């Protein structure tokens, strides 16, 4: 790997990172985009359809992924891990490790013959572990780059992939390589994780097969999902009654997540609408404290869902257990009626919240807020500036937000970072 010298280095290739890279590159800056997974796309590329327009998610994300890959000012670096950062007079110097794919990216055509040949089947994180892929695979159908990657930790070294590859791309001699990136400014777009499915033990997440997280439901609703339809993972039954438990990982002091995760109301409503389309006979109930449909067009979306027959029940879910047929039984306090009931569903979705992805902030020694997201010292003056000069932040690394807001903050960070680059490069030119 050759060392790189760029104006801006964007850390993270999810929607916020991609948009920030594009907005910087469109202004003529040289940008490196660093992603630790083998493909860019982040969480967004795993979604089905997106609110409030119900566009197919892939139709919004994949063209941006493609634009990143083809942009003359963007150096796309996938499957790379940041090791260390040093401040230099003119910006930052990063040591980066290119992890071995055991596949030559210049030769691989993405034909997936190796994947079909590979004998080892593994749970696919793209499908939240509910679908499968092979030890060598193209991570998902719309991955960028369209290049296979071999998981050496789960490989039996049988060599079948190497034999079947017409391009001669499989290369077991690859090793991790370290290289250096110099950048005037850094943009952190390290994204979020869901609060753990089992964080609230009384909800049975991870113990009960038919209590799932919302990203699993996204995969069921996506045309490329693991089952090609909505089934409950416990036994492959098409669910006819589905409950959503709102604030299952947010606004909860016992979890240390006191904040609102902003997206859960909308994704639950959206999924309810999509399920109604896929399974017209299904009953869908959403248990909530407050419905927070605050974005542009969101309140109308909520009203549409009510008109479609999605049932909104104000209630606090106390616990979830399972009956003899794997059906989750929800114990809920109906706060508008003052009584506690139990109701049986085929499937329960816990509307989990957002917590920050760990990692980037530590290497960059960025101070965090009480909510553990990267601290923004002056949100009402410089909403994308971290406590360290020259390091900016965008998307869900700065707190929970939806895609629309992530894209706006990406544009915003592009402005802030480019002003910094111009100012800083002018200064160092005279220095």
């Amino acid at each position: 790997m050759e060392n790189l010298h760029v104006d801006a280095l964007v850390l993270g290739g999810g929607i916020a990172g991609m948009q920030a890279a594009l907005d910087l590159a469109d202004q003529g800056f040289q940008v490196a985009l660093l992603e630790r997974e083998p493909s860019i796309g982040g969480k967004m590329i795993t979604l089905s359809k997106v609110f409030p327009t119900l566009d197919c998610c892939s139709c919004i994300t994949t063209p941006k992924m493609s634009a990143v890959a083809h942009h003359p000012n963007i150096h796309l670096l996938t499957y790379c891990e940041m090791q260390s950062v040093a401040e230099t007079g003119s910006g930052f110097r990063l040591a980066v490790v290119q992890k071995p794919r055991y596949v030559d990216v210049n030769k691989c055509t993405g034909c997936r013959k190796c994947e079909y040949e590979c004998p080892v089947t593994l749970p696919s994180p793209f499908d939240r572990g509910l679908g499968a892929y092979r030890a060598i695979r193209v991570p998902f159908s719309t991955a960028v780059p369209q290049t296979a990657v071999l998981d050496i930790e789960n490989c039996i070294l049988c060599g079948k992939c190497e034999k079947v590859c017409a391009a001669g791309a499989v290369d077991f001699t690859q090793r991790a390589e370290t290289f250096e990136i110099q950048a005037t400014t850094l943009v952190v777009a390290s994204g979020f994780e869901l609060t753990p499915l089992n964080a609230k033990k009384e909800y049975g997440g991870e113990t009960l097969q038919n209590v799932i997280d919302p990203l699993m439901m996204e995969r069921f609703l996506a045309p490329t999902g693991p089952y090609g339809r909505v089934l409950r993972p416990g036994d492959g039954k098409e669910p006819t009654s589905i409950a959503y438990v709102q604030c299952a990982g947010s606004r909860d002091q016992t979890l240390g997540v006191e904040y609102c995760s902003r997206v859960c109301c909308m994704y639950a409503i959206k999924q309810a609408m999509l399920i109604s389309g896929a399974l017209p006979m299904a009953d869908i109930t959403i248990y909530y404290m407050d419905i927070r449909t605050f974005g542009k067009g969101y309140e109308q979306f909520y009203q549409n869902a009510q008109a479609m027959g999605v049932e909104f029940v104000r209630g606090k879910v106390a616990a979830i257990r399972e009956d003899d047929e794997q059906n989750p039984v929800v114990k809920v306090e109906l706060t508008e009626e003052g009584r506690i009931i139990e109701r049986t569903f085929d499937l329960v979705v816990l509307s989990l919240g957002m917590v920050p992805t760990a990692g980037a902030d530590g290497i960059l020694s960025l101070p965090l807020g009480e909510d553990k997201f990267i601290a923004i010292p002056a949100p009402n003056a410089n909403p994308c500036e971290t406590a360290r000069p020259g390091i900016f932040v965008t998307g869900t690394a700065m707190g929970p937000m939806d895609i629309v807001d992530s894209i706006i903050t990406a544009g915003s960070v592009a402005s802030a970072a480019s002003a910094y680059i111009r100012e800083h490069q002018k200064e160092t030119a005279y220095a």
Partner: protein
Amino acid sequence: MSEAKTNPPSRGELLKQLREEHASSVERTQVLFREQRSLQQSICQMIRETPKTVPEIAAAIGKPSHEVLWFLAGLRKYGIVVEAGMCGDYPLYQKVEEK
């Protein structure tokens, strides 16, 4: 880096090194692979002639339903198994005929 030129290791050496480094994970994965193969074979055997639902297959081979569903998801993805109608609320799965 030292200035003295050392010959880069040969392909054979690199492969050997890889095998040594990953000896334990290869062993572990081989066990996994054998289990997977036998399970997949018994699932496919079950649904070669008549399509079946996940609970039917699970009961027949004595494995939890969710595991069977996971295998079927993989088999379906790689074109080995297809959906073949519904039985009540459960889709039926069938092995694709080999050419």
